[in-house]
């Protein structure tokens, strides 16, 4: 590995703010971090922590509101030669062959055709794609496609490689193969890159690959902790030291005790993740049952129910918000109401859920209140959406309202007609 530790990338006080009708929506708040030569740095955080926004800001795909980004000591804005990116969705051009996709970045830089083709073939070779040069992306499996994504990034000989959840669209086995292949090339120094910044939501993946993990807290996104991972490669996922770091990160991600309190906006504008009531019920049942008996270690549950951290955490948070469970230090503990729910039958479950929903989610109580005061007992969706959009981004407002709809329907607190986009108390009170 590279002995010198020159800083490749430095972020200084980076902020990203979206202006909203009722003020500002702060997505990234005062982020400072450094990627040094010879490092793989992981960016880890729950959704809403703005990790993808941050990566896009560094890649020059999205302007940031304040702060400086230094690449090898000089400030950058916009796409920078020397920085290349690997996309979660591969983002290959389906009308270009593997070779064409890899050559594209070189052609864009004005590299002569012959040299471009020589370098592209070398990169294709390196990444294990030889034989596929003339194939079109749709002929390839997901793993092969992402290899093209890697080859395309490497061929422009970047110094810093940005990766946006590069393995999350792949099945478990393929993802693991690509990870180890990438690590082999990295450790053997076969690639031109000297530093990697990788966004991931997979805690194990971060611990498996990174030299350092930066944990972002959500709403607004800010650096919560930096965790060095001094384990030697190849790393053993079952080793106690490895497990300990995974546990620590889980604890960190669940540490902020009232996970749902918000610095911004009134209570009804609190962002809700759309978690299916089936997932909530399933999680309650799992934690209530043996071997957990009402208290469980989140990483263990995650493995047990085959969910990744970013899928499990929103569910755990939702339960906490509803007062059905407590989440702290990487553990989930059911409240008495949560235990009751797990043991109840369908109708009783709905009753418990509806009581807690009304008491704990101001938006649902608000919708109920508005419907009850109207003579028609009806209200259009846009009315609430507009209220939320004063404080939340459009996507978040939509997701929040959709979550309220799904939970409210399950709890039979109100009805919603998607055709007309109207809420009503009809069928519910009858």
């Amino acid at each position: 590995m590279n002995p010198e530790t020159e800083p490749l990338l430095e972020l200084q006080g980076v902020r990203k703010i979206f202006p909203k009708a009722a003020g500002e929506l702060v997505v990234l708040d005062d982020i400072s971090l450094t990627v040094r030569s010879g490092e793989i740095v992981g960016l880890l955080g729950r959704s809403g922590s703005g990790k993808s926004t941050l990566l896009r800001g560094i890649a020059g795909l999205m302007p940031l509101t304040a702060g400086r980004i230094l690449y090898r000591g000089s400030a950058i804005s916009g796409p920078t030669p020397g920085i290349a990116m690997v996309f979660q969705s591969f983002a290959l051009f389906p009308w270009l062959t593997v070779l064409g996709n890899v050559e594209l970045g070189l052609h864009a830089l004005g590299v002569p055709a012959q040299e471009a083709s020589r370098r592209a073939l070398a990169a294709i070779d390196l990444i294990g794609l030889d034989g596929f040069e003339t194939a079109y992306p749709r002929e390839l499996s997901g793993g092969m496609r992402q290899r093209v994504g890697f080859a395309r990034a490497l061929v422009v000989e970047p110094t810093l490689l940005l990766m946006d959840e590069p393995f999350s669209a792949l099945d478990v086995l393929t993802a693991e193969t690509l990870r180890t292949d990438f690590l082999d090339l990295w450790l053997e120094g076969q690639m031109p890159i000297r530093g990697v910044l990788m966004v991931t939501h997979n805690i194990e993946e971060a611990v498996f690959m990174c030299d350092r993990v930066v944990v972002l807290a959500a709403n607004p996104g800010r650096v919560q902790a930096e965790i060095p991972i001094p384990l030697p490669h190849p790393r053993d996922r079952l080793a106690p030291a490895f497990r300990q770091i995974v546990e620590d990160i889980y604890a960190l991600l669940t540490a902020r005790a009232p996970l749902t309190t918000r610095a911004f906006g009134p209570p009804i504008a609190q962002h809700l993740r759309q978690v299916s009531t089936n997932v909530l019920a399933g999680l309650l049942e799992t934690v209530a049952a043996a071997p957990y008996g009402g208290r469980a270690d989140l990483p263990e549950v995650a493995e047990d129910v085959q969910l990744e951290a970013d899928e499990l955490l929103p569910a755990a948070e939702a339960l906490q918000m509803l007062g059905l469970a407590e989440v702290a230090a990487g553990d989930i503990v059911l409240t008495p109401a949560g235990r009751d729910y797990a043991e109840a039958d369908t109708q009783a479950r709905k009753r418990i859920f509806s009581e807690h929903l009304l008491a704990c989610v101001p938006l649902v109580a608000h919708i109920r209140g508005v419907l009850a005061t109207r003579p028609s007992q009806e209200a259009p969706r846009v009315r609430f959406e507009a209220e939320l959009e004063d404080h939340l981004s459009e996507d978040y407002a939509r997701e929040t309202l959709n979550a309220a709809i799904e939970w409210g329907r399950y709890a039979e607190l109100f009805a919603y007609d998607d055709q007309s986009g109207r809420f009503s108390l009809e069928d519910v009170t009858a």
Partner: protein
Amino acid sequence: MRRTNRRFPPLPVWLGRPNRWDLVAGALVFGALAAIIVVARDMRMPLEMLDTTPIVLDPAALPGYAARTTLRMFAALALSLGFTFGVATLAAKNRRAEKILLPLLDILQSVPVLGYLSFTVLLFLSLFPGSVLGAELAAIFAIFTSQVWNMIFSLYQSLRTVPHDMEEAATAFHLTAWQRFWRLEVPFAVPGLVWNMMMSMSGGWFFVVAAEAIAVGTHTIDLPGIGSYVALAIAERDLGAVGAALLAMLIVIGLYDQLMFRPLVAWSDKFRLGETAAVETPRSWLLTLLRRTHLVRSAGVPLRRHAHAIAMWRPTWRPPAVPLSRATRTRIADALYYGTLAALALTGAGLAVSLIAGIGIAEILHVLRLGFFTLLRVALLMAIALAVWVPLGVLIGLRPRLAERLQPVAQFLAAFPANLLFPLAVVGIVHFRLDPDIWLSPLMLLGAQWYILFNVIAGASTVPNDLVEAARSFHVRGWLWWRKVMLPAVFPYAVTGALTAWGGAWNASIVAEAVRWGDTHLVAQGLGAYITLHTEAGDHARIALGVIVMCLFVVILNRLLWRPLYDAAARRFQVR
């Protein structure tokens, strides 16, 4: 071979919510139309030049006529393509242009081309006095105005819906705006554009036939071509010649389908987005042949290299910076732009009003009434056509082998210029002494109905087999099966087909409501007949009135009827 779009057709951009831009656009369009009339009516052009080489009904002359007609079609298509790239790109890339272009294009596509033919002919003749070029250009322009709109909307929609991650990849890998356009945006737009070129080509035949023989006042301009040949055959009551023309058309349509569109469709398949290879890849023997031929391939290499070099061209200089701040510049440009637009719209509205000012309120009300007659005809015919073709289309679409064989037939029928068959209708109506008000009506949908059929076939053949089997296993049969399973499943496709047919029917009303066979004239009460009769009489103000009223009918109903239908289709009936 299935050449239809397998995705659910997206909401046409021009069906957007109406707003004040529609008013501006309406004023601009009608103003421009009025301006053409004002310029053209003072022209007194000697039109004898075409009389020196009269059309002959000798079948041996047909291949030559067919070739000239086809040339006109392709000239118009090339013109449309160039115009499409300019206008759609402008609309997609420029915020200011977009605001006015979308409503403008919407209204323009509703202008009945045929009603306007006599003016455009005069205008082009005056531009090229003493030359056939003017008449040729007028015919090409007529075809162009029937072809270009859906191509523009297709390209615009594609340019606006390029997948975000691919845009990001293009930026991250330093593609310039020019490179991104040719390497990402245009390839992404190709499948939609090719499909719309096919539709346009089909629609164009109808107009080329009408545009080749145009009566301007007392003169008739006959451009050598199939359309003029048929017009002469009709005037001389020569059924054999009409038959020969039909045969020539069949051959021409078959040829360009095999030699041009099939290879294009097969080629454009590689630009299709999508995770997996299609179940059925469109194939073309010609493309396969070309791809396998070394000689052609190697001849293509330098061509491809040049295309590549153009697409990847990088500018070596940057425009100098303007010393004003961005916000100030925007404000100044906004003021200039919107000021000019407002002035143009006011002038246009004034011009249009002054042109029809001499016509009394009573006549305007009468024209509106005629509009309702035509609307009634179109609506009734659409209902009948839907009642017939939707069930048939479903039954055909559910049988893959049958669908494969009948789909091209339906597409062919849609391309066939139905106005060639009008004389036969006249013979029938006269012979059985039928009421022209009723029996001329079917002519309006004669050509357009096939759009419904082939869209429904395409829709039914993409219904997931699981759905069909689930219905069968739950014993869903009879009327319940239609109501709950098949009709909802093909609804979006039926709406797409019906919308195309709808536009076609209005345009066709101009030739379908007033038809002749030799000296026999049959006229129905309707807006189309009103426009036709006043065209023959050369009454400019009344033509303008008729055209404007027809535009209004189409535009308003597009917004009030088709937009909600599309919304409903997108929300409820999309099979995922």
